[in-house]
């Protein structure tokens, strides 16, 4: 059981590296949505009888992270007619290295944390950490609004991954996490990115520095 | 009745004897230079003549120009009356009278300075500046001397302060006070009363525009100031208290005479200093008095 779980989480971590490495926005979005799908599947695998709440969470995640938001992103990308992240603040190779280093560090550090026996030998926590880190790298290192949004969503995937530790005990928090995705996702992408696109007719956030000291 | 008579006598002796000193000095200078010189009573004649003359006042000056010399004279007289005359004591003596005396002298200076500035003449401005500025240093020296005496005697009233000698530091104190005397009365080497070059004068240039009675008052005041300082000096260094009244009076008169002679001799031997060296000399005076003070402190402590 844990084997499949770890396999999936490993896959998600691989997708992190892909997201860090690619310069093409479609690939980035695809990586993110794939990660969403994986995260949607994981709860089902968490090895306990499937009650309706878990199913709901799984479904919502699948729909939200896997389908809705990526499609929104693609639309925004089309309207902005960009599909490449040119000269990022943190280059692709450095960010790859950072991400990989982060993943290794996470794997190395997690044994220091006290974990319940059933989580002790899963990749949940290191995976979560690595994904959160990936999200931050993208947020900090990319200049296109869309890549930053992807970064943000990946960051949340990480948190969601961590939340799975608690899905049995306190599902509400996890549900809340999903909620966060949908609302923020829709907000940022659906409205603001679109407005920015119209106001600045570009999604290059380097243009957004009118407000400063 | 008697005290009143005393006071009147004291007043008279200040007013009448004061003009003698400049005469003596001039006499000494003349003798040293091998001339016969003006009579000793010359200043009396001058004063009398001036008192009879009319007044010429600068077009710029205000009525104060005439009045201020009187104020200055009164303040000098007041200061004088506070100074004890050996055994005769002072007209008025109380705790802290020495300070009043110092500040009365300052008042006199203030009045002459304002009167001089009335005329708006650059020469007199120069003189005023020198007078009031050098006064800062001589003030410090005098106060140091006063402190020395008051440490010595443990009193702040001149009668008791000046009765005994200034103790071990007497030489220092004497020299310091003598230099101050020269400075305060604008004698050589600080100022040359006989010069006729306005640029080099202090006191003389301040009174350049005065004439008639006011000038007389000023000259008389100056002579009283000279007498005052020589009395102070004498009593500070000569222990009069140890002698009987007659002897003391004699000593006092002799002391004053000696001081005047010394002034005269200095005047005839030295030339006027360059102004930039004046502060140096005054600082020396100050330091001498300061050392006298320290000596007195040590002496008092032991």
């Amino acid at each position: 059981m844990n084997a499949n779980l770890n396999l999936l989480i490993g896959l998600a971590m691989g997708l992190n590296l892909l997201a860090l490495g690619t310069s093409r926005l479609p690939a980035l979005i695809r990586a993110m949505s794939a990660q969403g799908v994986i995260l949607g599947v994981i709860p089902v695998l968490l090895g306990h009888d499937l009650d309706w709440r878990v199913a709901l969470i799984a479904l919502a995640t699948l729909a939200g992270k896997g389908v809705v938001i990526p499609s929104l992103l693609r639309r925004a990308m089309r309207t902005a007619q960009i599909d490449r992240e040119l000269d990022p603040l943190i280059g692709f190779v450095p960010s790859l290295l950072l991400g990989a280093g982060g993943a290794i560090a996470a794997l190395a550090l997690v044994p220091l944390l006290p974990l319940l026996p059933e989580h002790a030998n899963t990749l949940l926590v290191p995976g979560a950490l690595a994904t959160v880190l990936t999200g931050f790298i993208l947020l900090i290192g990319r200049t296109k609004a869309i890549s930053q949004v992807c970064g943000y969503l990946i960051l949340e995937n990480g948190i969601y991954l961590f939340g799975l530790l608690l899905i049995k005990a306190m599902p509400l928090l996890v549900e809340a996490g999903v909620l966060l995705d949908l609302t923020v996702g829709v907000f940022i992408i659906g409205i603001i990115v679109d407005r920015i696109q119209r106001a600045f007719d570009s999604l290059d956030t380097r243009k957004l520095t009118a407000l400063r000291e | 009745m008697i005290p009143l008579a005393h006071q009147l006598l004291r007043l008279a002796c200040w007013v009448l004897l004061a003009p003698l000193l400049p005469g003596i000095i001039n006499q000494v200078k003349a003798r040293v230079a091998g001339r016969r010189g003006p009579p000793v009573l010359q200043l009396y004649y001058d004063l009398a003549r001036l008192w009879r003359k009319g007044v010429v006042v600068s077009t710029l000056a205000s009525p104060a120009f005439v009045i201020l010399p009187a104020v200055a004279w009164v303040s000098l007289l007041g200061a004088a009356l506070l100074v004890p005359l050996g055994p005769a004591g002072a007209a008025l003596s109380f705790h802290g009278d020495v300070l009043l005396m110092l500040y009365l002298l300052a008042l006199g200076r203030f009045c002459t300075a304002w009167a001089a500035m009335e005329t708006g003449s650059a020469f007199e401005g120069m003189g005023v500046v020198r007078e009031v500025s050098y006064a800062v240093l001589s003030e410090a020296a005098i106060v140091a001397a006063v402190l020395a005496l008051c440490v010595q005697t443990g009193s702040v009233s001149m009668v008791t302060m000046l009765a005994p000698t200034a103790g071990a530091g007497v030489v220092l104190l004497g020299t310091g006070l003598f230099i101050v005397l020269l400075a305060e009365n604008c004698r050589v080497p600080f100022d040359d009363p006989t010069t006729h070059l306005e640029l080099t004068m202090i006191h003389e240039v301040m009174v350049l525009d005065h004439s008639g009675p006011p000038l007389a008052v000023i000259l008389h005041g100056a002579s009283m100031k000279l007498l005052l300082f020589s009395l102070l000096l004498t009593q500070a260094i000569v222990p009069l208290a140890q002698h009987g009244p007659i002897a003391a009076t004699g000593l006092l008169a002799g002391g004053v005479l000696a001081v005047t002679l010394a002034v005269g001799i200095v005047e005839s031997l030295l030339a006027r200093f360059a102004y930039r060296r004046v502060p140096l000399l005054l600082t020396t005076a100050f330091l001498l008095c300061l050392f006298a003070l320290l000596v007195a402190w040590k002496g008092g402590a032991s």
Partner: protein
Amino acid sequence: MKSLLLVIVPLLAAALAAAWPSNRSRPLLLPATGLIHTFLCAWLFFCPPPVTPGAWLAFDPLARAVLPAVSLLFLVCAWYGVSYLKIRSERSNRIFIMALLAVLGLLSAGHQSRHLGLLWIFTEAVTLAAVPLLHFNGTPRAFEATWKYLLVGGTGIALSLLGSLCLGYASLHGGGEGDLTFVALMSQGAGLSRPWVLIAWVLLLVGYGTKMGLTPMHTWKPEAYGEAAGIVGAILAGGVTSVAFTAILRIRSVVGAAGEGAIADHTLLVIGLFSMLVAALFLLGTRDFKRMLAYSSVEHMGILTLGAALGPAGVAASLFHVWSNSLTKGALFLSAGNIRRAAGSASMDEVRGMNILTPRSAALFVTGLFAVTACPPFGPFFSELKILRASLEAGHMAATAMFLTCLLLAFFGLTRVVFGIVDGRPANHAKATGKRFVESAGVILPPLVLLGLSLWLGLFQPALLHDVWAAAAAQLYPSP
């Protein structure tokens, strides 16, 4: 039940606003809702309902100690909003009013929620509900501000969620069975897993600190406050930050129960002083009087945090400061809004002589300045003095010295800017725009009332309020 009304009424009003046809009469919903809300609040304040320990949402002492201030502030701002929206009648105010009312409802919920997850949900909801308020002006600058607000704030939200999860895991690891109400967590006390609690504390402090605007997470504040309308600034600075602050207080109490209070207090002390220092340095140099207000707000958040680090007395003082600060700041934001509108700019390079163009607003602004820089007899003076006293009683001499120094530097900065724009002779073009702005009662009285309230807080020091604050502090520091 009434406590639920506090949440429901505004949300219903928001829905109503959505449906309301007329753009002209819609603003009246604001004061109406505000009145009802304040009335309910007052009712609950004077006869507080019994709180069932396990309740997820209740008007508990902490809510009682803060929510009325928010409600008052909103009421006055709503009153101001009517005349403000009358000036801005050119654009539709539907979304604006909806958002405003929603913010009120969610704030009430956030202040009352006694459940880790719930608290987080409402804080997040408030953050998102405030977004439309920020880009009401619809200028590119407004969108830029919104974008930064959303992403920085979003990161904060995410981190606080992660923190909540960690805290949850701490309780789970300690054998808790998934009850995340603060009461339960505190009762679990030392049973919580220490490392996880600490991790959670750091994450939550950063997360909610981002909402509060503590340095170095404050970066969204100047942008957002600088571009938003005065009324929005007032509500963000007075209301939204306070909910984050109470969240931190509640979490601090859990950490304290877990036996890590000392560490928590130390972190609070450090980040509070750091915020004050950085804010003061910004204030010394900034040339835009609305951004200046933002930095001053950062500084006051630092003061609150400092107070929170000083034990029950400090917490009570901080709650006092929440009141005095939100009321005074409200007055400043509203009068600054007037001046901004009359001068047509917010930079002290262009704005001068406002005491000639808008004498009343300028007078209010200056009074507010003195009030907010802790000049007696206004509220902040007394609250900051209480915090000062608490920190001296706790024996933090160096911290106190630092605190006072920062206050002084902030004073320099604030007076420099404020008198720079108030005194002097107005530029000619400014005269023209100034003419167009009328200082009607609708835009002058609300800030005046807020200042009056601040003055009342200071001079009369209602004993009841002090008891309430003490009670709230007692709730956070249960005596063993």
